[in-house]
C-alpha cells in the first residue's frame, strides 16, 4: 500500500538531508508504528507519505514514493490527499475553525469536495458512531477536551475515506485519559481495513496496536521488525527512544539470572504477566 524507495529529502535553502535513503513498505490493512527520538525526522516522513512534501514544502526530494498505486510526486496535491489522510500532533490546529459545531466540522472536507447533502449526513453519522463521538455532534469543537478534540480530528480525516491514514504523534498533547481514548479507537479503525501509519513515543500503547515497528535514527530507517521484539531491542536506548519499565525490569531480572537467558523480553503489561507468573504471589506477601 505504501512503498518508499531510496527516499532522501532536504528542506528548501538547505543542503542538509533530514532523511536519507529511506526504504519503507507498509502492506495494505496493517498498522505500522514508527519511533524515533525528538528531531529524528518523524514529522517530515509523515509529510512525505501524505504528499505535503514536496507539494507544499518544496525542497529536494529524491527516490520514489508510491501510495495506493499513485506516485506521489507525479500527481497533484489534491489527488495525493485523496489517497492519504494526515492527523497532525495538535488537535487544536487540526480543527478548521470554519465551523461552529462538531457535526459541520466533520463535514468540512466533504463540502469542499462537493459531496451531496444526504451522503454527507450519512457519512457523518457513521464516522461519529465508529469513534463514539455521536453525543458531541452539536457541541462547539473548541469547547471539547483535548482527547475529545483529537477524536474529532481523527474522525474528520476518516470521513474522507482515504485508504491510508498517517498519524503524527496523535497523543503527544493529551493526558493519560485522552491518550487511552485515542488508542481505543485505533482498534475500531483496524476493523475498517484501513492502512495505518502511527508516529508515537508511547511504546506500551504502540506494542498493543502496531504490527511492525520501524525505527528512525540518524536520519535513516535504521531497523524494523515485529512490534514486540523491535520495541524490546536494547539498541533503542542508544537511539534515544528508551524502553518501557517492563522491558528494563525483565532485562535486569534476566541479567541476575532470575529469568532464562533466551527469554523473549516483554514490552507491555500483557507481555510481562505470563513471564513473571512463576514468581508466586503468596510467597512475597
Amino acid at each position, binding site marked *: 500500500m505504501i512503498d518508499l524507495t531510496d527516499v532522501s529529502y532536504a528542506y528548501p535553502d538547505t543542503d542538509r538531508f533530514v532523511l536519507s535513503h529511506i526504504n519503507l513498505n507498509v502492506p495494505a490493512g496493517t498498522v505500522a508504528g514508527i519511533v524515533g527520538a525528538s528531531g529524528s525526522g518523524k514529522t517530515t516522513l509523515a509529510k512525505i507519505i501524505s504528499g505535503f512534501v514536496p507539494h507544499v514544502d518544496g525542497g529536494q526530494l529524491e527516490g520514489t514514493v508510491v501510495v495506493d498505486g499513485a506516485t506521489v510526486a507525479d500527481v497533484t496535491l489534491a489527488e495525493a490527499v485523496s489517497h492519504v489522510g494526515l492527523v497532525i500532533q*495538535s488537535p487544536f490546529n487540526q480543527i478548521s*475553525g470554519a*465551523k461552529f459545531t462538531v457535526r459541520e466540522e466533520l463535514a468540512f472536507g466533504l463540502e469542499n*469536495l462537493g459531496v451531496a447533502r444526504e451522503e454527507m449526513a450519512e457519512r457523518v453519522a457513521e464516522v461519529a458512531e465508529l469513534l463514539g463521538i455521536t453525543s458531541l455532534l452539536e457541541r462547539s469543537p*473548541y469547547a471539547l477536551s483535548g482527547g475529545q478534540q483529537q477524536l474529532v480530528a481523527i474522525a474528520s480525516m476518516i470521513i474522507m475515506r482515504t485508504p491510508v491514514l498517517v498519524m503524527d504523534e496523535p497523543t503527544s498533547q493529551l493526558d493519560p485519559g485522552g491518550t487511552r481514548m485515542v488508542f481505543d479507537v485505533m482498534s475500531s479503525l483496524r476493523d475498517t481495513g484501513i492502512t495505518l501509519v502511527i508516529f508515537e513515543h508511547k511504546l506500551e500503547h504502540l506494542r498493543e496496536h502496531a504490527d511492525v515497528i520501524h525505527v528512525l535514527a540518524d536520519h535513516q530507517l535504521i531497523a524494523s521488525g515485529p512490534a514486540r521484539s523491535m520495541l524490546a531491542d536494547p539498541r533503542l536506548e542508544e537511539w534515544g527512544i528508551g524502553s518501557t519499565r517492563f522491558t528494563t525490569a525483565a532485562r535486569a531480572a534476566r541479567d541476575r539470572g532470575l529469568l532464562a537467558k533466551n527469554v523473549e523480553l516483554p514490552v507491555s503489561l500483557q507481555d510481562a504477566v505470563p513471564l513473571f507468573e512463576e514468581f508466586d504471589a503468596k510467597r512475597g506477601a
Partner: protein
Amino acid sequence: MATTLFDVRKSAIHRLNPVTKLIALLAIIVTVFAIPLWWVAGLIVVLVVAPAAVISGSGGRLLSLSLKILIPIILVLFIVQGLTFPGGKTVIWEWGIIDITTEGLMFALGIGSRIIVLVLASILLVLTTHPGDLMSALTERGMSPKFAYIISSTLQLIPAFRERADSILLAQQARGLSLKGSPVRRVKVMLPLLSPLVLGMFTDVEERSTAMEARAFGSTAKRTSLIPVPDTLVQRIARWLFVVLALAAVATPIALGLL
C-alpha cells in the same frame, strides 16, 4: 467559543434567511442616507427596527448594546457641532464666548439620526443571525468559501489567542518582567510579549493549513453544504422589493429636485 453578539433564540426574525436580513439592512441604510431627513430615519426606527426588535425578543440586548455605542457619539456630535458648526449663524443660547447655533444642532440631528439607524439595524442583524449561517448563506450565493472560512475561523480563534496572550504575559511576569515604567520602557516590554505570540500563532498556521489541505480545502469542486439554509418564496419576493425600495429612495430626492 464564539465571541459574536449572537443571541440564541428561535424567533421569526432569527429564522429568516440571513441574506433576506442582510438585504433589508442594506436597504435601510441606503434609504436613510439617500433621503437625508431626520424624520425619515425616525420613521424607520419606529416602523421597522423597533417592531423587528420586539418580535425577535432581543430588544433588551439591542437597547443596552446600542446605547453603549451611541451615547458617547451622539453627545459629542451635538456638543461639537452645536458649538462649532462652520455654517452656524442663528445663535440660540450663549454664555461668554460659548454659543450654540440652530444650524449646528440641526446638522447634528440629521447626522445623528442616521447613525442611530445604522447602529440599531446592524446590531439587530448581528444579534439575530448566527455568523455561521450568514456565511453558509453567502457562500451558497457564490461568495468565495475563503471569506467564510476566514470570518468563522477568526471568531473562534480570538478567545484562544486572547488566552495565549494572557498566558505569555504571565509567563514573562513570572520571569521578573515588570510592566511599570516610562512609555518607552513599556514599548520595549511589547517585544517579549509579541514575539512569542506571533511566532506561536504563525507556526500554528503552518500546521493548520496542512490539515486543511488534507481535507481538500484547495479543491476546485463546487462546494456543497451540510446544513440547508431555509428560504421561502415570500422572502425571495421581499428581497427584490427591498432592492426596489432602496433604488427609489436614492432617486426620490433627485427627482423632486431637493438636492
